[in-house]
């Protein structure tokens, strides 16, 4: 059912680079999350995490 309209060239290596970037971002967000949990444990949370954090949990 999915027939993709590949009318633009994704570019050689562009899928690969997205896989790598996503993996790095995933790891970063993972550690960032842990860091926020540690912080929350020791300090009373003043304010919610800045923007962009929603994507980490979603």
């Amino acid at each position, binding site marked *: 059912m999915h027939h993709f*309209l590949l009318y633009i060239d994704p570019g050689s290596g562009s899928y690969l680079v997205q896989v790598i970037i996503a993996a790095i971002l995933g790891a970063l967000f993972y550690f960032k999350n842990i860091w926020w949990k540690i912080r929350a444990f020791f300090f009373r949370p003043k304010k919610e995490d800045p923007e962009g954090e929603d994507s980490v949990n979603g």
Partner: protein
Amino acid sequence: MVNYTRHPSSFKDPAGFVFESGGKVYRQVNQYYASQYQQLMSSGLYDALVKKGQLIPHQQLHQNLTQSPEWYSTLLPEPVEYISYPYEWCFEQLRDAALLTLNIVRTAIQHGMILKDATPFNIQFYKGKPVFIDTLSFDLYNPKQPWIAYRQFCQSFLFPLYLEHYLKTDIQKILSSYIDGVPVDFIARLLPLKSRLSLGVWLHVYLQQTAAGSQKQGKAAETRFSRKKLLDLVSHLTNIIQHFPAERIYNSTWSNYYEDSILSQEYLREKETIVRKFCAVTNAKSVLDLGANDGHFSKVFAAYNMQVVATDADSRCIARLYQEVKKNNITNILPLILDIANRSPAIGFNNRERAAFHERIQTNMVAALALIHHLVIGRNISLPALAEYFSQIAPELIIEFVPKEDEKVQQMLANRPDTFPDYTATTFEACFEQYFNIAGKQLISGTSRMLYHMKRKDAA
């Protein structure tokens, strides 16, 4: 069969094309795109985006106007009168267009769709805000697949923004040379060393440059991607772009022009009174303000309910005006960067894909206030040549003549020989009267500058 002309830029996408017929611009949807179009409409994506003012609304017509065998449907989008291109936008405009694109990707994913391309040419500034105009850019979303338009997004949004951010200089001329966006190799060589300290630059520029050399593609990647990964990627791009400094200040030649001028306040008030007098008697519904600077007079024209295209060669002036338009929700001023002596040319395939400036932007009136001396003395364009130029673009003209004895002109002539014996009010009038009738003429008191209201002879 109805007569129609296919738009010369509309040849890439098999999903459909844009055509003009009877003065209206339509978009044909081909059979090829039927299921995607149905998904766009039935998933609620179209409604969601139109409601937020992010996608141009259209009317669906069940008429095969082109009589083409591939026809599925015909759309009549809300007309966007003035088409502008990324090489006429300031940093802030390109940034807002980039954020709109990412925002749309996110909304699309929620509705089982994705953008299959990400080019600034799919966005127009309409009623003061960026809006997505390519209704056929949405494809069905397969979570296993990375974003097909990622590279295009980087080349045409992220890289130019990075360049301007790090180099602190205008990059519009570069954009008009690279119609498909700035190649990764090019930007990787231009960015300064300190940019390597940024994770975003490191990932999206240098890593991508390395990967672009690799021939490994596709299959393995497909199995390792997911919706969450794509959302992470989109969030990361959004974060980078949002965190570019909101107001980018570097001093430019013109951005403090009015503040620096000693005679400014009084002069501006006098000039405004005369311009308002001219505005009160014109029937013009639209005006092209050339050399608009910070848009002082663009706002005067806008107050007379004219559609204003405000242009200046200085990107900082345009940026300032754009911020103001945005902040105050001004819907009838479109700020654009334009160097009159070197306007945006026609570019792309057959030089017809993206039209030259004046082919896209036509107005009832043109305003050239405190401009002519820069063109004659600054750029060596003769008065007869200028009169001819204005006659081609302006049925009606409000123009200011700044004579040689004026302080500004004296400054311009201070370090160069005066090779302009013909630069006088008499020659100016004689040249322009070849094409125009002078409908009004008034001295700006306290100065030697003269304001003219002219009407082209054929315009009656």
